[in-house]
């Protein structure tokens, strides 16, 4: 069991190093294309290229370390307690709110967001969910109008 946990932790460290390396490599290529300029007159890609190169080398070092000396990572059991469903719902809801914010209007978008968060994630009773979401969204709408905040109103004027 302990071995399996350590292996999962190493996998997570491994993936993190690979992702960081890939990100740095892509940024390095992008920076190179921007133009490095010269040392006495650095171009727009100079600093990002230097940073990306250093990051790529460090990520590579981390990758080698995880492969050569497994079990030394600090992420032992890192994701053992993860509730990926909850993470996906919360992030998806926030992203969805961003998508509908301007089309549906502030009031409707935030009401829907709160319904998901209170009802699905916090698992409140349906009437508590609807009432809380409606009250918070309405109070916020009232306040934003009172303060003159230019928030989108949508087709229903909410």
């Amino acid at each position, binding site marked *: 069991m302990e071995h399996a946990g350590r292996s999962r932790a190493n996998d*997570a460290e491994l993936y*993190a190093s690979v992702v*960081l390396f890939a*990100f*740095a490599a892509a*940024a390095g290529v*992008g*920076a190179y294309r*921007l133009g490095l300029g010269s*040392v*006495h*007159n*650095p*171009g*727009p*890609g*100079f*600093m*990002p290229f230097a*940073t*990306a190169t*250093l*990051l790529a080398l*460090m990520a590579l070092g*981390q990758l080698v370390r995880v492969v050569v*000396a497994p079990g030394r*990572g*600090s*992420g032992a059991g*890192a*994701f053992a*307690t*993860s*509730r990926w469903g*909850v*993470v996906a719902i*919360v*992030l998806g809801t*926030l992203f969805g*709110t*961003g*998508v509908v*914010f*301007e089309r549906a209007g*502030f009031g409707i978008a*935030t009401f829907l*967001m*709160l319904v998901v*968060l*209170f009802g699905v*994630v*916090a*698992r*409140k009773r349906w009437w508590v969910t609807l009432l*809380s979401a409606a009250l*918070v969204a309405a109070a916020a709408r009232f306040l934003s109008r009172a303060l003159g*905040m*230019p*928030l*989108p109103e949508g087709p229903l004027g909410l």
Partner: protein
Amino acid sequence: MDALHSMMLGLGVALQPANLFLCFVGVFVGTLIGVLPGIGPVGTMSLLLPATFHLSPVGAIIMLAGIYYGAQYGGSTTSILVNIPGEASSIVTALDGYQMARKGRAGPALGMAALGSFVGGTVGIVGLMLLASPLAEAALSFGPPEYFALMCVSLVVLTFLSQGSMYKSLMTGLLGLLLSGVGLDMFTGAPRFTFGVNELTDGIGLIPLVMGLFGIGEILGNLEQSTTRQIYETRLGELLPTAGDWLAAKWSIVRGTVIGFFLGILPGGGAVLSSFVAYAVEKRVSKYPERFGTGVIEGVAAPETANNAAAQASFIPLLSLGIPPNVVMAVLFGGLLIHGITPGPLLIQQHPNLFWGVVASMFVGNVMLLALNLPLIGIWVRLLRVPYDVLFPLILFFCVVGVYSVNNSRVDVYLMVAFGFVGYLMQKLGYAPAPLALAYVLGPILETALRQSLALSAGSFAIFFTRPIAAASMAVMAVLIAAQIVSELRRHR
């Protein structure tokens, strides 16, 4: 005499009714978020930054600063009464504070935390008054090489002092520098990594980045923990520590103040680190170290004094050098820029009202906090009963509205969500987010200083090693990195 005259000027600003009100709002919100686990001063300050757009710069900074030092006061309440630190800087307070509460001594623990915080905070402000001006005058002679070297050393010290692996912290710092490069190049105007998205030409916003990493990321982490809270009640009459408590804690308060003040000035220091160091020192010098963790008053007095002294002292490098020593100061740095004020050596000369007004407001704020945290403790305790599953949807709601309202941009909401996921993964994998955020803020200044230095020296890197301040900073950086490499090698043997 000059300082006294300036202080009078500051008091005149701080005592204006509008600023007094904003100071109260700041320390009240600070105490509130300090008490409530799940949202810290970084997230709250970012959230409220858009709300300050209509305020005067002085009022805005007074309020934002109040949130930071107010959170240090409030954080201890949950540590002592529920064993859940409201703030990271109050983690060690829980060790002895909660044990005192279990023994029926919650009152003296809370009282000592509040009074110790007051002492630490007040001494920190005096230090800020006395040190900031001379430091700013000295910094006027700094050129791009000195700034480049100082910022490099700040980032390395931050990664050195961050919790967890320094290697990982350096990587997140580099990631922050890379992200700071997004947007138009300030020398040529060429778009960098904008991928045709108009909203990215101004770069990635500080607020979506910070709200995502520290707000959303933390909430996602908290949703995985289920906590049962047993709150130890106390009465006002029981709040004052006894004479014996004062006698036992007097040197802890002195040591905590000194440690907090100096670690607060240091890049990467701040309230969290100072509270840990103060507790460790207290345990080391104690005649009965074995009793630490069982409910000794020194274990509450030292970290609570230190975190407040550090919170005030961390304003010194920001206001005198223009270098934020920690993430909270980085957010404040962003706030000053939004209000058209460039933090740096000229700030005190050009905006004396702002500098001295903010300093004076800290004195006023500390007195307000004492009143908020002692007589009103019952209200904060009641707040602790609000379940987290009611709080988190509201916090997320404010995050979305706050981030959107900065630029009325959906892209900022998407960025916040993306950084929220990154923050969650970083938390899980032991990558500290603070170096990323600080490097992100320092990135543009660092790049400007590097490119100006290289232009000055006709492309010679020797410029960083031939000027005394730059060379000394580079030497400190080299020593820190070497020390870390040696320690890593020893650990692996």
